[in-house]
């Protein structure tokens, strides 16, 4: 395939997708007679909330109405609004239907597709009394977003190379191979200021320059798709929704740096991503976009997929390389850095999925376009996985520097039941908690670091007053204890000891020195661990200590858990006046420590023997059980 042929291919494919690329300008049927397209989100979340049966019902309804030849159903990658799924978007009308059940599809076909009237009851409403919103661009959830990395996710069939090409796919590669020297490509990435999206924020262009400058012929490019931070799933969505973008980006990296071979290291928990990526590699190879003589130039590059086997530490560069070679994923001391001595002892770069996903648009549109988005120190956009106690959850891509408040209240639609925001956790087990007083913080690499958290891979978890910050710190420490590979003692032993101290605090067994011990141990683990896992493991502790120290102190000094989470610190009592004597608590108490008040139709809890399980609190229909 030559670059000219690619352009012709793109023009043909684009015409077939006109409803999606230019809904307003699309008139009449597409070349193949299609009059409408139904985009159905086949992202992980929608699949699990019933997309397959909705799609079946939709196809049946279309067949029944005789519309199967003029209405095309397109399963797409993740659209982002995970909590509203299953989702169907009708094009070119640009109407989004939410929370669909199989039985709703008949109405869409009859009323909307045949009758021409959108089905109001299936549209999104911000709340029950609000007017329905049909166009995604009018919904606050989408309006505040800017999609660069996710530009194709949710708008095309991830299993079709045609559709990727129709969305300017492989144009960046053609541009680089025909009009740019390898150094020009590196210079563009350098000038774009793109920073690594996997956590540390290292400038991608500098990494590429180091690999290009490294001596030797054999060099490797690795894509790190071992997305392990609990709460983050953007890499999965990119691989599942737009796999060719990663193939193209890796090929660009290879061209710029002189690498001949690439690996994608994907976690085994993502079978669909693995399958789609393998399919994309095959299709690209068949089309002459990968392999020998790429785009009829002298370039040769091949990509292999390596599947992980469930070890968080493999997200660390040196551990990842060991795992690619079929070994235990244990890290090595750095230096030497992978760009000096990586896979097989050869120079290697490792880029995260989201970082790579930025490359094709940067090459196509130029560095200046990219620096026009986001902030000076953090150009571009960032994809966040918004989750936790927030009304709308899902994948959200915003310009760097977007305020946390906007994220939680505009995009996320605030907290359920109007509850108060307590903290947002970013960066997973390597990150920290941002308290309410910093709600106006700009979400970019440097601002997050200033308040003691990190961008990490982009998990953003909203918490309300029901979350105990000591317990949150303990949760992340437990994660690190389990995931520590065991090679270096500061991490192996240190995380365990910190976990024990945190457990003491939660159980009410801490003394006046526990917090000080925790702090000094945190410093040791931070400075003496071998790799990033250990070095960042104390972050959740340090950041919660910094912003929620009073909560720690309440656990230690007053033996109280203000959030009502740490069971051993809770006391349950029955309010005499509110108790109606229904016996529900009495019957459900697992330790039989609830007794009838003598001669009355009232009950009381005997504190001795109470295991603070909270069952009585949960079953009481009258709110008579008090928890303190």
């Amino acid at each position, binding site marked *: 395939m030559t670059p000219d042929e690619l352009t012709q291919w793109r023009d043909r494919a684009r015409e077939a997708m006109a409803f999606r690329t230019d809904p307003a300008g699309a008139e009449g049927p597409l070349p193949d007679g299609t009059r409408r397209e139904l985009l159905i989100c086949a992202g992980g979340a929608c699949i699990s909330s019933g997309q397959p049966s909705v799609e079946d019902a939709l196809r049946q309804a279309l067949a029944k109405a005789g519309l199967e030849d003029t209405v095309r159903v397109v399963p797409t990658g993740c659209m982002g609004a995970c909590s509203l799924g299953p989702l169907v978007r009708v094009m070119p009308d640009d109407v989004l239907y939410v929370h669909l059940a199989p039985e709703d599809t008949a109405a869409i076909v009859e009323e909307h597709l045949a009758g021409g009237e959108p089905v109001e009851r299936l549209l999104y409403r911000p709340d029950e009394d609000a007017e329905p919103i049909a166009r995604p661009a009018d919904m606050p959830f989408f309006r505040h977003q800017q999609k660069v990395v996710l530009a194709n996710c949710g708008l095309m069939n991830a299993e079709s190379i045609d559709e990727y090409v129709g969305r300017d796919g492989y144009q960046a590669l053609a541009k680089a191979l025909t009009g740019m020297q390898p150094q020009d490509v590196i210079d563009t990435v350098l000038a774009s200021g793109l920073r690594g999206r996997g956590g540390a924020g290292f400038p991608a262009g500098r990494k590429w320059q180091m690999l290009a400058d490294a001596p030797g012929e054999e060099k490797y490019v690795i894509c790190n798709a071992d997305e392990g931070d609990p709460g983050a*799933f953007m890499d999965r969505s990119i691989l599942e929704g737009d796999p060719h973008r990663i193939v193209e980006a890796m090929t660009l990296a290879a061209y710029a740096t002189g690498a001949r071979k690439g690996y994608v290291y994907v976690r085994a928990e993502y079978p669909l991503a693995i399958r789609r990526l393998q399919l994309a590699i095959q299709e690209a190879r068949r089309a002459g976009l990968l392999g020998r003589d790429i785009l009829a130039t002298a370039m040769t590059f091949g990509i292999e997929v390596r599947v992980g086997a*469930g070890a968080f530490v493999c997200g660390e560069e040196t551990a990842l390389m060991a795992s690619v070679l079929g070994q235990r994923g244990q890290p090595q001391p750095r230096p030497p850095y992978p760009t000096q001595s990586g896979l097989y002892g050869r120079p290697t770069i490792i880029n995260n999925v989201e970082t790579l996903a930025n490359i094709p648009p940067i090459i196509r549109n130029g560095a200046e376009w990219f620096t026009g988005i986001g902030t000076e120190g953090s150009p571009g956009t960032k994809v966040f996985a918004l*989750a936790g106690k927030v009304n709308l959850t899902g994948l959200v891509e915003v310009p760097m520097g977007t305020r946390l408040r906007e994220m939680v209240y505009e995009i996320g639609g605030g907290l359920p039941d109007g509850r108060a925001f307590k903290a947002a956790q970013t960066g997973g087990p390597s990150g920290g908690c941002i308290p309410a007083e910093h709600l106006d913080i700009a979400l970019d690499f440097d601002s997050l670091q200033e308040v003691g958290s990190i961008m990490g891979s982009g998990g953003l978890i909203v918490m309300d007053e029901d979350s105990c910050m000591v317990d949150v710190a303990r949760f992340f420490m437990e*994660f690190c204890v389990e995931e520590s590979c065991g090679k270096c003692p500061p991490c192996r032993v240190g995380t365990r000891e910190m976990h024990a101290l945190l457990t003491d605090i939660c159980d009410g067994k801490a003394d006046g020195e526990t917090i000080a011990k925790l702090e000094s141990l945190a410093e040791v683990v931070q400075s003496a661990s071998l790799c990033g896992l250990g070095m960042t493991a104390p972050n959740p502790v340090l950041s919660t200590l910094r912003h929620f120290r009073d909560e720690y102190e309440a656990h230690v000094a007053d033996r109280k858990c203000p959030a009502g989470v740490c069971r051993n610190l809770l006391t349950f009592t029955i309010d005499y006046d509110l108790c109606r004597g229904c016996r529900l608590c009495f019957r459900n108490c697992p330790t039989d420590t609830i007794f009838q008040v003598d001669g009355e139709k009232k009950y009381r809890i005997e504190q001795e023997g109470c295991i603070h399980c909270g069952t009585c609190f949960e079953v009481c229909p009258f709110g008579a059980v008090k928890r303190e």
Partner: protein
Amino acid sequence: MPQHERTGTDVSRALVDLNPPELAKFQQLEAACEYFDQSDEALIQILHRAQELFGYLRDDVIRFLAQRLRMPLSRVFGVVTFYSFFSTVPKGRYIVMVCTGTACYVRGADKVLEAFQKELGIEVGQTTVDGLFSLTTARCIGACGLAPVAMIGEDVHSALTPDKVKKVLKAYR
């Protein structure tokens, strides 16, 4: 330890004693080894295939692979035990995987897990007596928008509460 175990058995001769379905599995595993050119780099990929075929990584399967890939048994065993995806004990027909990632945790995954334990009568890492269910936890299955979630086999069950657990399990019994 018998002599032949220390020096290594002749793999092809040992296979003669197997019943046909077992033999077929070993042949498929053999094919996987060949597909990867008997390369030690592909150990993890081959172990995935082995677990797919046999359900878990039995002793004799691990020994077979060590011989085929010409590497010390300790190296294969070291990799098997390092990664949480590999299991050396049999698993139930359905793996119940309760996500305890951050988003699920914030939305009450611990109570859901408790409900599964109570309903199945087993702890995490165990298998029910009837061999139907194994209970495990996952760090995050990437369905945070639907928290709390659990996977049973390949199905994801979303927005779980302790009350829903019984009903969810019923479909598999």
